């Protein structure tokens, strides 16, 4: 039994099966991310006026690392180019060039994920501190002479944990105050980068930049993690086609080329999601 049009195009639709399949799948993906983006808009619109952290539930601005985000945007867009080049190489029958471009694409994909995890870690080790006297700070924490561990999700502190582990005092290095327009450098210069001892009894709220802290972090981590998962799965599939899966090139080059086209379409979609994500979450 053979299923028709697995790689040859059906004359009246002009498409092979997998191409129809991937476009349908992408349609459903658009609805998936569309729902998350809509949720982002709704949560942001209904947030009270004022800016976090001064306003507890206000929407934060400028929290995310824009240079890193820009870098990642460039990385992903480049990978979209290289994946097209890989496909074009196959069309011209150059399997070696195909593999080179696939390796480049994979490097971009894992580079993106590496940078993203650095970005995440920056958030997990960053704290919001509210004192009972009404002061609000963001900054970095030192407990018992140690910064919270790198890459250890279990090492995230909050007031409950301080109480439970009977920590009487923490060292807190506040971030420099946000530069106001025109006096950026002056503010930086006047700020002292020293840790300050803060007693537990003075603290009314201590929370890292993690999802439960604020809906901004909740939606930021949810969307970017889901997107990161797509990048990861896409990279796995491409790694398969670049190495063991490329055996098919010898038996059925046309079908193999089609497979790369389909993977490429998925990869462009993943790229496109980021192109929306970056301005919406990082810049606006």
């Amino acid at each position: 039994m053979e299923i028709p049009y697995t790689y040859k195009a059906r004359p009246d639709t002009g498409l092979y099966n997998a191409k129809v399949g991937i476009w349908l799948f992408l349609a459903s993906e658009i609805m998936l991310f569309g729902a998350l983006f809509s949720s982002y808009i709704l949560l942001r619109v209904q947030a009270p006026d004022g800016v976090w952290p001064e306003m507890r539930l206000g929407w934060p601005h400028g929290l995310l690392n824009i240079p890193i985000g820009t870098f990642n945007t460039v990385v992903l867009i480049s990978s979209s180019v290289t994946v097209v080049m890989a496909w074009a190489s196959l069309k011209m029958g150059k399997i070696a060039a195909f593999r080179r471009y696939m390796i480049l694409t994979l490097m971009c994909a894992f580079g993106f994920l590496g940078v993203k995890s650095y970005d995440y870690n920056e958030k997990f080790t960053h704290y919001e501190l509210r004192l009972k006297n009404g002061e609000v700070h963001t900054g970095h924490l030192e407990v018992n002479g140690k910064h919270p561990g790198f890459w250890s999700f279990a090492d995230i502190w909050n007031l409950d944990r301080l109480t439970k582990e009977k920590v009487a005092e923490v060292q807190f290095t506040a971030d420099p105050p946000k530069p106001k327009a025109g006096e950026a450098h002056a503010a930086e210069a006047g700020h002292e980068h020293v840790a300050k001892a803060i007693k537990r009894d003075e603290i009314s709220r201590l929370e890292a930049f993690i999802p439960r802290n604020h809906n901004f972090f909740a939606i930021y981590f949810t969307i970017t993690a889901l997107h990161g998962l797509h990048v990861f799965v896409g990279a796995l599939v491409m790694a398969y086609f670049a190495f063991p899966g490329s055996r098919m090139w010898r038996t059925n080059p046309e079908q193999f080329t089609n497979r790369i086209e389909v993977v490429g379409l998925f990869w462009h979609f993943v790229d496109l999601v980021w192109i929306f994500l970056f301005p919406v979450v990082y810049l606006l």
Partner: protein
Amino acid sequence: MQATNHTAAHGGGHEAHHHEPGFMQKYIFTTDHKMIGIQYGLTALIFLLFGFCLMLCMRWQIAHPGHPIPLVGSLLEKVLGDVAKDGKMSPDLYNSFGAMHGTIMVFLAIVPLAFGAFGNYVVPLQIGAPDMAFPRVNMASYQFYFLGGIIMFISFFIPGGAAQAGWTSYSPLATSIPTHGQAFWLIGMVFLISSSLLGAVNFIATIIQLRAPGMTWMRLPFFVWAQFVTGFLLLLAFPPLEAASVMQLMDNLFGTSFFLPTGLAVGGRLADISGGGSPLLWQHLFWFLGHPEVYVLILPGMGIVCEIIANNTRKTIWGYKSLVFSVLAIGFLSFIVWAHHMYLTGMGTKISAFFQTTTMIISIPSVILLTCFFISLWGGSIRFNTPMLFALAFLPMFGIGGLTGLPLGFNASDIYLHDSYYVIGHFHYVVAPGTIFGLMAGIYFWFPKMTGRYMNETLGKIHFWFSLLGMNLVFAPMFIQGLKGMSRRMADGGTTYFGADDIAIKLNTSITHAAVLLGLAQLPFIVNLFLSIRNGRKVESDNPWQATTLDWATPTPPPHGNFATEPIVYRGPYEYSSPGAARDFTPQGQKV
């Protein structure tokens, strides 16, 4: 020329791997759409029975609150522990059973049966395809469904039991209940949704790409059209619920506040959350799936009914094109009616007015569908076999279900009827004697193709008449209860509810008796289904019902690859009693 080549390749392929596939490959890890359809069907029927049993326990509690459940009470106590102490149903258990009855019936029974089972088995046959476009994706779709089902089932036995927040899982209730049932529910849902997505992609691609030569769009049997639209509904409506499930899972496991408002108090204490979320957001995302889901439930049933009516009236279906365009219109409109489930949320009169308008508009194509089926009966010499009886009963039952929906679509009357037994009566009329009757009709109709034997007519008729009686005795009184203001979701059947009068309370008992009758009426079906596989009357030919569509042009049962020779289609799907034809039916593959 091409056709010859294809046949040659076909024959050659068979010789190359002539060895019989092993048991696992043939029945468990199969990529054959027919076997996957049967897997879906059997699993879904088991869940259908299981969901029904949950409801029987609940009905006992409603009729006799606080009395130990007969027969299964001690078993429940043994398995579930304190929630079923002394064999009595605690309110927590009642809530669990209620939530899981809805979830199981919708996501694990009806959708898999209507879309997974019938769609898989019949669609490739009816369009003249050798299999689905992506057989392995098809297998994965069933496996995801199966895993989702297992997760849902296991959740009954974890400490605290299964999810308790209703099948709609409204936040903040779903996040405030301090057990892990809801997390299991959400993870199970993610599997079920992924399964549906894989299925939907596969169905749509198959229908677009694998139609046999000559099978143009307007020659597709209506059943295929119904599945096509259903596929799009699943494809586009389910992902928002997947997103919502992920967000609610974040709320439950990681303490976020997507759906939790500022100042939420649980058990009299301020909840330890950041707040700032929106409970309405969950409802919007849920019902954005939830309403198209209603049409996912009903359209395949309508497709089956259409096939059976055309076949047993021996007439072409009246208004084929109206049916097709109506079903497309329903598919489109079903995406913009969802908030009529939310009139009472205070989302605003302007939004309510919009959704009230679209809701009234969507009733038009639904009425067109039903009208076409009714007119198709006109002047036919009807064969009253079991599938036809179920198909005929579908029409008035769905009619009652649909028309009682109108007062719920108007927001003025909905404010009174919302969350009452009237709502339960309404949607069960659509789904139970509606869709389930359609599906039963389909089982009796395609059973001869699957096995080569008929199901027993006498048992089938007993099954039909007692089911019809049982269904109506169960659901019709609910309209009265609802109009009398009886609220749903009350673990004691409303005895403590001051507004409920004697009549409404007394109806609880009669409904419970009717539910038992309905349960007993399914016994002949179960017996019939299994005995007929070996002992049923053998079919005389490959086309026992003398039908026109391609599914009957295959060998019985269809082998792997379906057709002996590649089918070519020459005509529309319902050419019955054409003037001048030799017989009273002209199959689609017949040239002259």
